[in-house]
């Protein structure tokens, strides 16, 4: 896969890492109105799935919650994939990791475990492999996606390499550990 040119990669590391870090306190002010409204309805149980810190990672903004048709605001055309299988709500969150860079999380809570299994299988094409995360998981360059119970979780890594991969795995394990066992 073609990578961006050297200057762009440098910007990606510096601009996204440093500038993004500096600007991160302003994230709530930039948040689209719909997401702000969604966060106002966050329930404590959902938000608790996203810990404040995990190892070298710290959460840099309040989780945003999306209910029902609000899911279009989070993933636009990806929403029906969840909605048609019994969707309850979703949370999004963002972390800065030292080392590991920027990592974003999306947690989808389905009405049933069968719903989450169907979503996961459809998204991944095949049942997930063994990774020690969740009941099944798919780990590819730049993303960890796993499923446990009614939950499907995606962990997106904005930087590549061993450090982001380790930070992402630590976050995935921490979130997995907070998902209620049925």
């Amino acid at each position: 896969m073609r990578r961006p040119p050297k200057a762009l990669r440098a910007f990606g590391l510096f601009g996204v890492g440093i500038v993004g870090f500096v600007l991160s306190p302003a994230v709530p002010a930039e948040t689209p109105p719909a997401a702000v409204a969604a966060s106002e309805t966050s329930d404590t149980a959902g938000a608790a799935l996203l810990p404040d810190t995990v190892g070298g990672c710290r959460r840099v903004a309040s989780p945003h919650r999306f209910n029902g048709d609000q899911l279009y605001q989070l993933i636009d055309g990806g929403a029906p994939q969840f909605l048609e299988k019994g969707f309850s709500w979703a949370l999004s969150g963002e972390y800065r990791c030292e080392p590991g860079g920027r990592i974003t999380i999306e947690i989808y809570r389905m009405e049933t475990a069968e719903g989450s299994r169907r979503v996961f299988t459809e998204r991944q094409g095949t049942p997930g492999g063994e990774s020690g995360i969740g009941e099944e998981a798919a780990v590819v360059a730049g993303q960890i996606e796993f499923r446990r119970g009614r939950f499907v979780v995606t962990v997106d890594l904005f930087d590549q390499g061993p450090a982001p991969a380790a930070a992402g795995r630590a976050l995935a394990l921490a979130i997995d550990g907070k998902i209620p066992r049925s």
Partner: protein
Amino acid sequence: MACDRRRFLECLGLVTAAGWAGPTVLAGPPNPASQVLKQSKPGSSERLSPHAVVKARGTDYAAATRQVIDRMGGMSQFVSRGSKVVIKPNVGWDKPFHFRANTHPEIVRAVIEMVLAAGPASVKVLDFPVEGQNAKSAFDVSGIGMVGMKKGVTAQPVFEPAGFRGISIPGAAVLKEALVIKEILDADVIINIPVAKSHFVTDYTGALKNWMGIIRDRGFFHTDPEKPPKSKQEHRQRVARCIVDIQQKIRPTLSILDASVAMLTGGPPGPGEQKTLNLVLASTDPVALDVVGIGLFPNLALQKIETVQYAAAAGLGLADPAKIPVVDCA
């Protein structure tokens, strides 16, 4: 890779019929297939169909972009001195760069440079990212915020309500009113730069679907709270109808497709299965461009993609692959 004069003339020999539409338009009627305008490329009296799709390949995406635009007669065919230009890439997603959910920045960079050389009054690179995404971050991680850092260019997301203006769409099937990015409405020239991706609802997102990004109230594309779609098929049809409705009111002057990497599955956010194609394609006919783009996806069936079928039925372009001239620089 080089597209020199000799190759240019050879390629033109492949082109069928008609002429060049030249700068198309906001809110104008569709160009009839019979419309013939002379291509005014210096040194050439050859003509291109307004439905022609020009393509170039290579790993230097900026060079490939210049090739296709040069083949179409140069950016001055579309951008007049003193005109207000809006460039509309897909910057919908605050996702890692390698997911390829957004238009490649080198293509946008090349377009900006060509537009600036044509002497416009203003150049704005705009998109309304998916609402729940971090809009400013989307411009950063995509690299498009950076390539827009040029004198005389503004590159930024539009997400504040004040950035949109209401329009009515007489004759629309579904989308009778919409809030549209104001700069789009005020522009003389709009350059649409989608990225070729799969899409869970519409199967394919390219030139037609990218136009959804100029609308604020996109939730209405998916559902009407008072009359929600009863099936997946109804949902697909509704989205496609809305996309065609807005295209009937506001049309790009030129569309350039980023097919450097096709997101075959997992769209629109990705990552999904990717296929490196190293292609850049362009046309003044967004329907024809989508037809050729869809042809790059072995897992898609053109006949099942409502956006293209509805747009062709509305007279917005050609959907018959056999009638679309494809001009290849190779």
